[in-house]
């Protein structure tokens, strides 16, 4: 419809539209004023620094002028894709990220639905507050707790962490050392994320649930729907939009595995399984100062993110949901 309208506009109409825009601007000037700081923020801190992306195409090192560094085309990208570590990094990043998506993403939704079913208000409120608490625990503390739970004793006569002791009893192997098992790091990272962030993740879904029209429930009760049927046929569809939005946003950061958590849990034995784009770029790009290379990796990640968001968005629209844009 917008298209046909535009096509129908004559020059006269355009002038009229211009005047109309101006009156609108004038009328809502205070609104635009409010918009100004945000716009400036994006221009100064997000748009202008974008020219720095050019570094990805230059042979730059800290110490030469950015302008003087020679252009090298896609060398940094070729370097990255032909890196012996590339497939290992991609594998680890995808495994950690997809495990998060599959096992962690549904949990806040389920927890929110469960919390919503609690009828005793004070109990619900108390529980809600309690599940938020881990979010405020620093990652360093979470890591320390993990180490304590998984500690292997120094001597046969001593006792280790509770999980290690359990594993020792169950397997009968006195030398169990979960932290020294490479692939176990995937599960450790996942469980840490679940413990720490599930409760916090419920907030947005609880808000969505709170927005569901109460009359729908009342009508369902009149029709004789059970609590479970209400949940499946009313609550869940009502928050589907929120779920899809969250999912699309999550797809945008599919190559972001977070940095702090992994760096803290990393050791030489599990590095083969725990080194991801983020940790690698930190070490090679920032500490060693290969800014061009790390910018190239960042750019690659951004392109993949855009593709992922677009794909997820289209898929959502095809499936009859309202997408993000």
């Amino acid at each position, binding site marked *: 419809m917008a298209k046909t309208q535009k096509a129908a506009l004559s020059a006269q109409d355009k002038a009229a539209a211009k005047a109309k825009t101006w009156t609108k601007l004038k009328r809502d000037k205070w609104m635009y004023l409010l918009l100004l700081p945000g716009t400036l923020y994006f221009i100064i801190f997000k748009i202008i620094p974008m020219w720095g992306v050019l570094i990805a195409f230059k042979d730059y090192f800290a110490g030469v002028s950015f302008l003087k560094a020679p252009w090298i085309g896609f060398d940094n990208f070729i370097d990255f894709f032909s890196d012996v570590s590339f497939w290992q990094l991609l594998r680890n990043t995808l495994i950690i990220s997809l495990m998060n998506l599959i096992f962690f993403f549904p949990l806040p939704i389920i927890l929110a639905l469960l919390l919503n079913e609690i009828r005793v208000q004070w109990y619900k409120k108390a529980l809600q507050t309690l599940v938020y608490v881990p979010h405020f625990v620093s990652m360093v503390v979470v890591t320390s707790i993990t180490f304590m739970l998984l500690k292997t004793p120094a001597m046969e006569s001593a006792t280790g962490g509770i999980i290690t002791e359990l594993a020792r009893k169950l397997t009968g192997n*006195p030398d169990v050392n979960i932290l020294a098992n490479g692939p176990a790091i995937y599960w450790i990272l996942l469980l840490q994320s679940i413990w720490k962030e599930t409760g916090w993740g419920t907030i947005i879904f609880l808000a969505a649930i709170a927005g569901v029209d109460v009359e729908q429930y009342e009508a369902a009760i009149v029709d004789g729907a059970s609590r479970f049927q209400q949940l499946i046929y009313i609550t869940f569809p009502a928050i589907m939009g929120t779920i899809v939005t969250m999912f699309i946003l999550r797809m945008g950061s599919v190559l972001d595995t977070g940095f702090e958590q992994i760096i803290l849990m990393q050791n030489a*034995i599990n590095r083969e399984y725990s080194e991801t784009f983020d940790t690698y770029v930190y070490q090679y790009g920032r500490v060693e*100062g*290969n800014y061009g290379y790390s910018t190239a990796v960042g750019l690659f990640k951004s392109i993949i993110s855009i593709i992922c968001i677009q794909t997820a968005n289209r898929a959502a629209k095809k499936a009859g949901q309202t997408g993000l844009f």
Partner: protein
Amino acid sequence: MKHIWKRIVSVAMAGAMGIMAMGLTACSDTVILDMENPVITVMLPTFQTVSADEEGPVVEEIERYVAEKMGVPNLEFELKWAANSNYGEKVTAAMGAGNWPHVMLITERTSTIIQNSRAGNFWDLTDELKATTTDENGETVYKYPNLAETDDMINHNISVDGRIYGLYRAREIGRAGVTVRDDWIDNLHAKGALSFGSDHINDITLDEFEEMLYAFKDDDPDGDGQNNTYGMVVAGADYIAGPLNNLVVWNGAPNAWGYSEEEGKILPDYMFPEYEEMITRMRKWKADGVINRDMDTFSSTNWDNPFLQSQAGAIIDVADRARRVANNIKDLNPNAVVDVFGFARKSADQEPVTLPTTGYSGYFVLPVASLPTEAHRDFMLKVMDILNDTYVSDLLNYGIVGTAYEEVKNADGSTDIKVDPPTAHYAIIENPDGTKSAIKSTDQARVNEYNDLNQFGMGYVTSEITTYYSTQVAKTVNDVYQTNKLYKLPNYAEAYISPTYSRHSTQLDAIMSSATTKYISGAIDLDAWYAERDRWLDQGGQKVIDEMNEFYEADTDKVTAESIRKDNHKVQFEEGVMQWLTPEEAAEFQREADLGPEAAAETEAPAEEVLEGAAETVEDAAAAADAKAQAEKPSMN
């Protein structure tokens, strides 16, 4: 109304421009050094929460001293501290922003540092360090007498393509050492569970070392009737290098890189059979519970704990760990006796081998951007030279000297040191052997005035003052340093930077440290370890080896078995340890010593003639050397 709108926009734009302008100026903070009225910016790492204030009395005293010697009316240091934990990142960021101080400490030789060295962004100091000049009496003297004291081997270690771009901070070379429970050894010896007593540990062999570790576990060294002790604490994975490198070097493998006769090139230590032999031995120790079971993931931050809790009897690390452990164990177990020794030998009739450090901890570079002319460079070198005067190095390490001190017992049993006058930081005490030690004020306000200033010290000239320690083992630590130096095994490839390695070091190192840790802990067998080693070669290791050998071939001053032997034997000769010297060597060193070092250098060309002339006296000299060795021997024990 319209003009209000305009005004808002213009104010906003001005604000935005202002922010951007601020951002841009922050980008380039380089100030070219003013030699008339110098304000010298220095970038340094901090370890303490409060670092010395540049307006504080210690820094001011250093400034006064340096200004006077430089002949300028006023000189100031502007200390740019950055936390040690991410210091490397800060250095890179400063260079990236074009934010050059006048002196900057480099702690890691990253690819950025190498690129900057090659690009000429740091002054090349190769020909400056030992430059000479003519003084007013017409005599040839060193331009920078303190900098001329720098060690050639360490200068070689910090070089890039054979050129020296910095002033290293000297560190103890013979620092490795084994901290042990002396009382346990004596208990076991008394029981007959150990074939030697604590007086033998300086002369221990690898087999005896193993015997000791087993006895620590099996024979109840603490005599409490319980099986609650084990041999040695080893930190695994990222930290395995500490104990492992010492053990393999004792067993005859190289220190990181060494020359393989069969292959005719330099190779990393894990390519050598002696390495394999040692890790197989450690695997047995681990399986028998002689090494802590949680070795794989044991972090070096907790290293002292099992020792302090009297669970483990030995730690292979740096010798000075013994000093700290001895201090801390007193509160937990007053009967514990801690001792330290430098090495174990493969067999009793073999010359010992010890693992040296690189001899430095970071180096100072002089950026060309902030010191654009040779005059600037020379000015800065002169300042750095003066900083090495013992007067300044004492200020950096201990603060301002007082006249007296007193110990004050607190109600809780701790002791405070009060120095007189109260503005001073330490007092000097005379030790029984005539040496002097600094006993420091415990007043925190005073300590804060020189905190972290030692990071600015280079230590080329040895001060007569040492830090005061109350324990006996602290003295032994110094003996260990001295003895270790006689038998050091340098890394053949220390100076070389392989591009592939600097690119993939984290991944490559992880493959081998992980494989070796797993092999020792019993998770994989030898074939799997070989497979991991092949993977190391595939993932870039072979390229690293090739690149390293290119450097090695091209190096005119390379490390060889011969050069190591000559260096060590010369030091041994100077220290009067004749046990391992051949008579010919002894004679040659004796002749050199008689001629004096300058004369020896001058007569280098006609050396053959001298040799022939000296040939008759070789036997006499050898006899003399033998007699000297005999005379010196008792003092060695």
